[in-house]
């Protein structure tokens, strides 16, 4: 019997691709949904980790190619700053690049050291449902304490110089806070979007920063674990992983396209309300 069916892999791939950019925790939904549907799939099973590698790689690849032009500008900016040994005062691409590096390093190191223990500790669906509720509360708190209210036309013009005004300390704080997303139920994009709002970004700019920041960390996590997919843990799930990855790529593209448009005029509030309601409902379902 296959450890994971093709139907399950399509559903989980679609879910991963959708929930990763949305501020609703893909990991949390990946724990809760199989449990709600009565599937015998557990986040810590070797084959499932191998499956997740493929969907995460697909998500990272779509994010990278979606913002390919921006990444090329950012890489050139990083190169310029390394060559000149300073970040030019007007060089928004270089500054944005280093903000992304500084945001990625702490999250990456904490992820390398804490991913396994946290995943093991908080792997239960009940725990994921409780943290999903907490995630919803956090999203509402971010909106309540954002540095400035949204203004009409916030999204117009080039976003990068606005994002690049963030301080390196703020970038490090947001990057470190991303590590909370190692707990199933807490959303990485939710934390980074919320952090962006607290530093004075608009919802649209915060979402853009969150997607750029997510790309290297998700990609690195996927690539580091590729040997698991290629090794014995991947036996019997490689076909399903490919199908899941294609499904994840499809919904990631749609989700990013939708969210960039959505946040031009909307806030995190609906996602906060959804997480609270879904979290409470699932907690009650799993408790009784």
């Amino acid at each position: 019997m296959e450890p994971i069916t093709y139907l399950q892999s399509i559903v989980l791939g679609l879910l991963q691709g959708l929930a990763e950019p949305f501020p609703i925790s893909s990991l949390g939904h990946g724990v809760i949904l199989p449990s709600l549907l009565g599937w015998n799939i557990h986040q810590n099973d070797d084959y499932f980790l191998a499956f997740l590698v493929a969907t995460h790689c697909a998500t990272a690849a779509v994010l990278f190619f979606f913002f390919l032009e921006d990444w090329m500008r950012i890489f050139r900016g990083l190169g310029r700053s390394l060559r000149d040994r300073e970040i030019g005062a007007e060089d928004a691409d270089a500054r944005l690049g280093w903000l992304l590096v500084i945001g990625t390093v702490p999250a990456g190191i904490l992820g390398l050291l804490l991913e396994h223990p946290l995943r093991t500790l908080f792997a239960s669906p009940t725990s994921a449902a409780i943290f999903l509720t907490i995630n919803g509360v956090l999203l509402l708190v971010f909106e309540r304490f954002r540095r400035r209210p949204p203004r009409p036309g916030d999204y117009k013009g080039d976003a990068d110089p606005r994002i690049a005004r963030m301080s390196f300390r703020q970038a490090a704080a947001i990057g470190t806070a991303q590590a909370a997303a190692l707990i199933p139920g807490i959303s990485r994009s939710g934390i980074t979007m919320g952090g962006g709002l607290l530093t004075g970004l608009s919802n649209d700019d915060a979402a853009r920063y969150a997607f750029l920041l997510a790309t290297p960390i998700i990609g690195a996590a996927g690539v580091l674990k590729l040997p698991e997919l290629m090794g014995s843990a991947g036996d019997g799930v490689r076909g399903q992983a490919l199908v899941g990855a294609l499904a994840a790529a499809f919904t990631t593209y749609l989700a990013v396209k939708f969210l960039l448009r959505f946040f031009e005029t909307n806030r995190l509030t609906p996602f906060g309300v959804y997480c609270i309601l879904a979290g409470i409902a699932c907690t009650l379902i799993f408790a009784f």
Partner: protein
Amino acid sequence: MTKRRNLILPAVVLGIVLLAIAVIYWVEPAGSLPSFFPGHEAGSSHHHAKHGIAAFVLALGCFVFAWFQSGPSRQGES
């Protein structure tokens, strides 16, 4: 950005130390790591490759920091 040239040498030294730590994590099994290293586990043959990557990334960060501090100072900068 203000250049702090007095931090160049400490950053390079710290980078070299972290690089050495990364190599130790990659080469030595958990049982052979010095006992004060995170991840030391007596008798274990497991390699803490991820700890090594973390140390390597920090080492790179130290070198990049030192590189930027060694850059030319802008006019009017103290």
